[in-house]
Each structure stands twice: as C-alpha cells, then as structure tokens.
C-alpha cells in the first residue's frame, strides 16, 4: 500500500502529516513502515526523525558521450533531441549535459553507434532506520544545487519501496511534473490544506490533478481555526472526505520550529492524527 501526502500549496504541513501519520500507523499495525521523502528540492522529513546510520547513494540519470572518431556529424542526434541538448556545427556535436533528460533518443537515432550512454550525477539518495521507531525506515533524495532534473531523482527515491512495508510518500508541493512523478503510482492520496484563501485555491488545483490521475483521495485540514469554513464548504460541495482536522496551536508550531513533531506531545494534535491513522488502517486493512 502506497499512500502519498501531497498539497498544491507549500507549507501546509505535508511533512508534519507524513511523519506523525507514519508513527501512528506503525503503532496501530505493528508493521514496518517506509517513508519516502520525495520533496527532493527541499527534503525535511529527516529533520523530524533521526537516522543514526545513514547510507548514501549517488543518483544518476542517463547522459551521453560522443565518440568523435566515429561521428560523421550527420546531425540526426540533434534532430532527435526534443530537449535541444545537442547542436551539430561544422560536422561536430556539442552536447549540453544540463539540458539532457536522459531519454536516450540520440543513441537510438545515431546511425554510426557513436553515442554511448553514460551516467550523470543529479543528487543523492539517503537511507536509514529511524531512531525514534526502528520499524520505520526513511529514504530521501537531495537534489544537487543548480540541477533541474528533479523527476528522475524522485524515481530513485521511489525505488526504495519494499513490498512487505506500508509506504508513506512525502510529495513535493505544487501540481507540476515533480508532484505527478511522486504521486502517480500511489494507491491513495491525502491532500493537506489550510482553511485559508490560498489553501483553498491551491487545494482546488491539487484536487483536479489527483482526479486526472484517477487516484482515490481525501483531505486533511491543518491549522484548523486560523481561517474560515471555505475549505469545508468546498469539500462538502465536491463530496470530498475530510479525513481529519488538526487544530491550530502555537505549541505545535514552536515544537515544529525546533525540528520536533507534536506527536505524543500535544494531545489534540495526537488525537487528530490518530483519527486519520485509524480510519486508514481499518479501510485498507493495513
């Protein structure tokens, strides 16, 4: 079972929900839980869970290297590359590796077999067992600074899933390619939002996206009490389940600021997360 925690807007509490819900589900089921932090641009789950032993793995995407001896400068690679990563002038190729999406179209197109696939580093995948609860393992990606290819790194993080475990994915914010990459193979999505104008606007786009992906979903309202009932009304109109509501609390925010979750520290918070955990465990026989 793969559950993705997503949101249109950033900063609504995806990571808070991911971490505390994973702890709740592990406690309820006594089964192993795997957290995959796919927000590779700004991964944060590891701040709230410590990894005493970390394993680091370099993540790469396919890139290419040109054999200038066999290359005849015919330019078919450049024609094939929809990402404009190759120019051929004066019968010689110029390759811009930072533009390459690693699709391998140039390799297939080259009539001389002068292009070979190589690997280009785009980031790191970091893995380990969580100190707070060793039945939980956490894997996160760290995109190299200046790198634009987030989706393949997300794929490398997703590959860390193991079949005997319940998987919780912390998805990147937004609704564009990185979010789709993280969410598309999930069995269920939870959209975290806030009861504010921004929260609602971004929730609407996230709902549209998840509906296009045809994945069942529900909503968690975080920081309930700061705004008004516009998100509730929207969910009612659209027939969207509100899985739980996490009340606004300055204490929760202060704990968060120190890199701690309010799980088992703040009663109202813990109850709200437990409610969501119980619902999920019962519904999906986790």
């Amino acid at each position, binding site marked *: 079972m793969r559950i993705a925690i997503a949101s*249109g*807007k*950033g*900063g*609504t509490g995806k*990571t808070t929900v991911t971490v505390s819900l994973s702890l709740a589900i592990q406690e309820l089921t006594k089964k192993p839980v795997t957290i995959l932090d796919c*927000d590779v*641009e*700004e991964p*944060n789950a590891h*701040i709230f869970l410590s990894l005493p032993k970390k394993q680091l793995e370099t993540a790469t995407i396919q890139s290419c290297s040109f054999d200038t001896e066999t290359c005849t400068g015919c330019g078919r690679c450049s024609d*094939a590359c*929809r*990402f404009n990563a190759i120019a051929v002038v004066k019968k010689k190729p110029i390759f811009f590796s930072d533009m390459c*999406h*690693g*699709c*391998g*179209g140039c390799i*297939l*197109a080259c009539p001389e077999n002068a292009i070979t696939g190589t690997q280009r580093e785009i980031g790191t995948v970091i893995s380990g067992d969580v100190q707070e609860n060793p039945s939980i393992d956490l894997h996160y990606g760290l*995109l190299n*600074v*200046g*790198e*634009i290819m*987030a989706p393949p790194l997300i794929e490398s993080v997703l590959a860390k899933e193991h079949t005997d475990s319940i998987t919780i994915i912390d998805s*990147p*914010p*937004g*609704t*564009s*390619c*990185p*979010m*789709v990459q993280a969410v*598309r193979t999930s069995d269920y999505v939870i959209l975290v939002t806030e009861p*504010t*104008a*921004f929260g609602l*606007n*971004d929730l609407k*786009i996230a709902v*549209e*996206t998840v509906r*296009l*992906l045809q994945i069942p979903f529900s909503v968690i309202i975080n920081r309930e009490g*700061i*705004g*008004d009932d*516009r998100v509730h009304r929207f969910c009612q109109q659209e027939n969207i389940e509100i899985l739980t509501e996490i009340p606004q609390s*300055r204490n929760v*925010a*202060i704990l*968060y*600021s*120190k*890199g701690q979750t309010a799980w088992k520290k703040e009663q109202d918070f813990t109850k709200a997360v437990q409610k969501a955990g119980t619902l999920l465990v019962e519904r999906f026989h986790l």
Partner: protein
Amino acid sequence: MKELVVLSGKGGTGKTSIAASFAALAKRAVLADCDVDAADLFLLLDVKRLHEEKFYSGILPHIVQENCSHCGKCYHLCPSDAITQKTESGIMHYEIQDLSCEGCGICIDHCPQNCIQESERFCGYIYLSQSQYGTLSHAKLLPGGENSGKLVSAVRKQAQIFANANQLDWIIVDGSPGIGCPVISSITGADLVLLVAEPTISGIHDMNRVISVCQFFHIPVLVCVNKADLNEDNTNRIKSIVLERNETWLGTIPYDEMVTTSQNKGVPVVTIPASKAGKEIITIWEKISHI
C-alpha cells in the same frame, strides 16, 4: 529598473503576502507571479483580467489507432513508461498517458507504421491583469503540466516587456518554493533576491539551499525572517548564517494573525493599519528601495 524576486525555499513562509505588500508599497512597479503551480498573488490584489493567452511547451504524441499494427515498439522504447497496454472487449491497443509523457519523441521517430503524430503540448494560460497596485503578469499551469520553468520565463518576460515599455522602477516577482527548475527560471538574470526565511529547523535547512542556488547564479540575496518570534534562537541563527555567507540581513517580521485575516479578505496585509507584521514589512521595503 530593478527586478526583485521573492523566494523562500520552504513553502508557506509568507512569500506571497510579502510580495503583495511590496506591490502596495512600490510606486511604479509591475508584478509577476512565478509560482505558477500555486499562483495565489492575484487573490490579494483584486485583479481584472486584461489579456489571456494559451501557453504551449514541448510536444505531445498521439497514436492514430486505425494505422497501428500493435507491434509494441513504442511501448518498449518509451523511457518514461508513459505508454500502456489496454484491452477493451478483447482487443488490445496502446495508449499514451499524457501526464507521464515527457515529450522525448522517441515513439514518434521509431514507429514502423509512422502512426504516432505529434502536436504542441497545451500547458496552461498566461495572463496580464490590472490591479489597483499595478499590472500583474501571471499564469495558470494545467494540472500535472510539464515545464513550469518555461512558463515562469514567459511570465517574467511579459512583466519585463511591460516594465520597459512603461519605464517602471520595479519588477516584483513572487517566486515558487524549492530550488529546482521553476526557481532557477525565476532568478536567472534578476537583480536581487529577497529570501523570506522561517525560524524553524526546516526553514533554515531550506534557506541554506536557496542561498546556494542564488550564489550559483551570482545573484545577491537579502534575507528577512517571518514569524520571527516563534523561535528567537533560530532567528538569531539565521541572522548569523546570512552574515557568514556574505549576504544582506534585512530584519524580522513578527507572527501576526492579521496576515491570515488579510489573506481571507483578499488584501495585502500592509493595508491593515493595526497589523504588526505590516509595519515591519514597510520597514523592510524601505530598506530594499534604498539598495
């Protein structure tokens, strides 16, 4: 003319509320909302749409089913696993999943039947709107849309053209969270970045990564901390990191519920005279306008 990009690394630190406030404070400015995934700036500015244009980027392949021999070559070659096998009333066919397709064109180039056509990929809309605080260039990316980087460039370009034509003093850009493609597109060639940090461990982690990206592209960074009183130790840590990394420290903004109130009213928080946060945003804008 100066182009200022408001960034945060982490989402939800108050970028958009601050950008909207700057819009209200700056006299001769054009605004650009480059957070095209979650474009919220217009919600605070009471906008009237002047112009709308469809935005295309890259290609989308399409299988002409009548001509397909079901050889499966595209299915095997697709590097994004975007081609699926479907069986309807006993007949198998191949389908392209638009949301998974990266637009590499391999299926088109290698189809032995030549039956995969390409069309330009419709990704969203780009708008020019009028608000009482100036003109706003913004966009809407379709759900699951690819290439928000190129859309970000288009939004900025539209704002730049408008600013040049009207000889404005400022382009104020609301950036997106993260450090990847859309952020890189919003900062390349800009004059200044204002980083709105949050005094949390995650906020510090994310801020450091954004500073690295800005330094990678040689853009000077100004930093302020929002909700500073939530954790004063962390606020002080941020200040020392900023100075250590040779960037400019601007000051702090207190946590203020009026920020949410103003958001739900649809106005910039600086227009609410009683707002503590609003007062500090005014001070910060004054510092920026004298740089």
